[in-house]
């Protein structure tokens, strides 16, 4: 199945606004994150937040076709 991955702030500058990822049916968010870290090393080097369809959720969440996974840095502070 295909899911959409969106990036924000400096991650967007690194990887673009969004990309599509082919994953196995009923893949968990953890599996998707592992796949993304394999592809983009930077994602494994810092703590980022993850949401599915606009809601921050746990890594055991089971995804479905067309879900939107957003990956974003913690608040910028400053």
């Amino acid at each position, binding site marked *: 199945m295909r899911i959409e991955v969106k990036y924000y*702030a400096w991650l967007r500058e690194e990887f673009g606004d969004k990309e599509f990822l082919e994953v196995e049916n009923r893949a968990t968010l953890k599996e998707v994150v592992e796949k993304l870290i394999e592809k983009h090393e930077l994602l494994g080097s810092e703590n980022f937040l993850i949401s599915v369809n606009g809601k921050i959720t746990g890594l055991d969440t089971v995804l479905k076709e067309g879900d939107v996974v957003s990956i974003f840095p913690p608040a910028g502070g*400053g």
Partner: protein
Amino acid sequence: MLFQYSLQQEVVRLIKIVEEDFSMEEVLLRLKTGEAGAIVSFLGVVKSLREGDIVNELIVEAYKEVAEEKLMEIRKEALKKFDIIDAVIIHRIGRLKPLENIVLVAVSSRTRKSAFEACSWIIDEVKAKAPIWKKEITPKGGRWVRGA
């Protein structure tokens, strides 16, 4: 049903992430109610100089859906935690020039102490928890503002 709808509308007006500028006067006026004896506000503005560099522009980006939800949570928690009457949080996004408004937190309460404490707590929480990021454009290039 109508009552619930009105309440929801009320919360939406008190929490805003917007591109356009806001009127501080209008917000303060809105907080002036019979019981309020103190209104404390924090206004964050774009610096024209930071760490020795001229700032030409500040780009403010938000993950709007999550940030709005976070601001609503912060406001709700402040209303529980402090003896205050009401709180407003408005954050701008987009390309802002030096001296433009970025963020406004305003709190009304019966006494000044709780208003000061709540206002300070709210802006700290907004900066620490809302997914809103800032990129400064300087003559040397762009740089993301990281850390509180």
